[in-house]
């Protein structure tokens, strides 16, 4: 055999090996673990996302999405990665129809090798209004990742194999001393015969849905994106968009739309749900359409969509799960996970317009009936002029001892206001304080001829809804740090306990002992350790116990 042909053989084998490895490989990818592989619509599914060290420089915010076989994104959240893990939950909508769905995680900055292939964990969802399921649409096995069985290496043991409902289970996990792995989770959950067959992790070629979202490295914050169009649907580049979020220290920023009419704002350390007010500034009076852009990926699974007929056992389990969900909702109507309020620590100690030259608190003076009186009596250096029913403000420039030619930047609760009539009716009792900055200020590339900022007692900003030039968007920022409580609540004896997921923790690398309480639901319970080995392959070790 010539040297050349030997080289060809080696090359071919290397490529084949690589391709084979790819089906089991998790290198350069975020890895998602979910607390369960099936759920009833309306349930909460917990996830943990592991980030390999090699991806740390691409950001520490994991975006997690729940999407259907046909790439419809059902839910999208973002969680901060700490010590290599992001933990959070996805609330599955009540009305979601029965089918196979997927949970996938990605970083906004996908500029690393292998980012075009994403792992998605399968999640079977059963609509809670339909307990008779006979067939289900699903992806064929071609994209499924093979898990190595590590049951011989990682041994899971319990004191017995059969338990009764609500009994305590004490489990031990034995890990050999010389055995190491990248990451793993321990879970105990009810076994769904259908999920046993259809569940698992799947590979898909993916790309970002919205090409105009930049591959910005999200560190401790979230990119919020949108686009501006004219009423004919054409993208509007080169218009200025202001974004404000009213908070203790208001967030304010601007963006000049790009060639696709796109704008983006980075909300650092923002968690919870924010109410963002957007305004378009243009020198014409034309109408614009602002549309929020969802940052998500679309997957192209290697398998094909087909229909699977269910066996009696599988259909029976689904019916039981849906019924259990019904009782859960009936006895415990309040969701176990409530969305937290918005929190965004201020970047600096001063507002974006700087330290005010003067702060006036109207409460310290007599009540005045409107802003004209307030400006006359309490605001030295501010001219309030009413001419032809139009109000104009002029602010004095302290350094020049002269009035600015143009109006100052006017704010109400941190939101820029360009219609001065908004101020007219404000009286002392509405206003918490008024800040004035009597100098020229720079914010990025914007220059302001002074600032007049009015802070109201009423923080609801209901007045914004009456302004056609302002748009309010609800932005889901980083999910506040919350993890599923693994210490089992011992449900009262006279109330049903319909839990189907019992334990959910990150696995340590040494022998572990843990306990959990079973619920009233009978069936097979799987205690498993799932993870990624040092050579970046998925592994699983499990033990099944019976609850009779």
């Amino acid at each position, binding site marked *: 055999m010539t040297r050349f042909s030997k080289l060809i053989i080696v090359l071919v084998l290397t490529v084949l090996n690589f391709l084979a490895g790819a089906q089991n490989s998790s290198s350069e990818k975020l890895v998602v673990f979910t607390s369960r592989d099936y759920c009833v619509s309306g349930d909460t599914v917990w996830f943990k996302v592991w980030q390999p060290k090699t991806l740390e420089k691409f950001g520490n915010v994991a975006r997690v999405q729940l999407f259907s076989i046909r790439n419809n994104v059902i839910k999208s959240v973002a969680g901060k990665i700490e010590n290599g893990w992001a933990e959070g939950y996805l609330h599955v909508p009540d009305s979601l129809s029965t089918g196979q769905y997927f949970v996938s995680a990605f970083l906004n900055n996908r500029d690393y090798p292998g980012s075009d292939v994403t792992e998605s964990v399968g999640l079977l969802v059963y609509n809670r209004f339909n307990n008779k399921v006979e067939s289900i649409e699903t992806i064929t096995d071609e994209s499924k990742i093979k898990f190595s069985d590590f049951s011989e290496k990682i041994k899971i043991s319990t004191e017995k194999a059969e338990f009764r409902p609500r009994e305590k289970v004490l489990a031990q996990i034995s890990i050999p001393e010389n055995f190491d792995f990248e990451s793993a989770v321990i879970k105990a959950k009810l076994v769904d015969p259908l999920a046993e067959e259809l569940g698992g992790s799947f590979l898909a070629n993916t790309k970002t849905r919205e090409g105009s979202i930049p591959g910005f490295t999200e560190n401790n914050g979230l990119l919020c994106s949108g686009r501006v169009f004219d009423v004919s649907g054409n993208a509007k580049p080169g218009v200025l968009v202001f974004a404000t979020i009213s908070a203790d220290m208001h967030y304010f920023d601007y963006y000049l739309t790009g060639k696709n009419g796109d704008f983006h704002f980075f909300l650092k350390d923002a968690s919870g749900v924010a109410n963002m007010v957007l305004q378009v500034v243009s020198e014409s009076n034309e*109408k614009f359409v602002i549309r929020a852009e969802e940052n998500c990926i679309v997957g192209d699974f290697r398998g094909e969509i087909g229909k699977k007929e269910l066996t009696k056992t599988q259909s029976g389990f689904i019916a039981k799960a849906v019924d259990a969900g019904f009782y859960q909702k009936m006895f415990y109507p309040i969701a176990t996970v409530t969305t937290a309020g918005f929190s965004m620590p201020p970047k*600096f100690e001063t507002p974006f317009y700087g330290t005010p030259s003067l702060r006036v608190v109207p409460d310290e003076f007599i009540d005045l009936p409107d802003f004209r009186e307030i400006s006359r009596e309490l605001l030295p250096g501010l001219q309030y002029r009413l001419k032809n029913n139009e109000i104009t403000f002029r602010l004095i420039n302290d350094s020049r001892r002269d009035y600015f030619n143009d*109006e100052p*930047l006017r704010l109400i609760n941190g939101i820029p206001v*360009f219609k001065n009539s908004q101020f007219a009716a404000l009286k002392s009792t509405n206003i918490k304080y008024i800040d004035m900055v009597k100098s020229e200020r720079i914010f990025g590339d914007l*220059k302001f001829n002074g600032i007049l900022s009015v802070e109201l007692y009423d923080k609801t900003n209901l007045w914004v809804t009456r302004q056609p030039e302002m748009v309010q968007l609800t932005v889901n920022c980083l999910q506040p740090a919350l993890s599923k409580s693994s210490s089992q609540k011992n449900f009262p004896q006279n109330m049903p306990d319909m839990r189907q997921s019992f334990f959910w923790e990150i696995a340590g690398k040494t022998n572990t002992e843990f306990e959990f309480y079973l619920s009233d639901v009978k069936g097979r319970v799987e205690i498993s350790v799932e993870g990624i080995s040092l050579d970046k392959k998925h592994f699983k070790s499990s033990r099944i116990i019976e609850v009779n």
Partner: protein
Amino acid sequence: MKRWKTYLIAIAGFLAMHVTQAQKSGLYWNNLNENSNRLNGKLRGEVYYLSPLANEKFFFQQEWAKAKIELTDGDIVENVDVRYLELGDELVAYNENIRTLFKVEKETVKGFSFKIKNSDTEIKFIRICTDQSKKSCRFYRVLDAGNAKLLAFHFVEEKKVNPYMDKYGLMRDFEYRHVVDYFVFDTGGELKKIQKKRRSLLKSYPENRKEIKKTLAGNKIFIRDENSLIQAFKVLDEANLLKH
């Protein structure tokens, strides 16, 4: 069923869009371009007007230098033209896009560094506040940073002199002088003023008097100017003598 779903999705999509009206702002933003969109945050401050006198007398460096500014929120803004204004202790930056000078808001700056033209030496300034009051915050040049830091505070003072005619033909009886005060910022967070004299160091650290004398003598260091002060500081800091 499918058609019904299509209609539902179309209605939902329409509702998800928001129609708004643009407004005239009165702001001048014609010079904004894609470089104006800095996602990590924007520099802010007060517009500064440069006078010929200030240009000549009040700045640390004569020419603009490309600087790296570190903000208190961890953000680093690079490639900004700056000059340190000794009179008033402010960092003046030049915004190329809108061709405007501005004093970068002091409370937002943690420190900045730049290289003087035709020199490889990096000049670094940090902002230190000695108490809760904003007025106590100043920019100090870092001469040496070890366990403790040797800092220099540059300022301009007006000094009375005999009357003279300046180059603009104006009679003046004062002149501006650049003055430098030296400080040691120790590990305890205390800022201690020192002079370019051995006596000053001995007075500031009386518990280590003997050791300081011995170390300086042993290394043949005579403190006369800034360079020898830096040398002395390095040696004493390594020997852990600059603490109480």
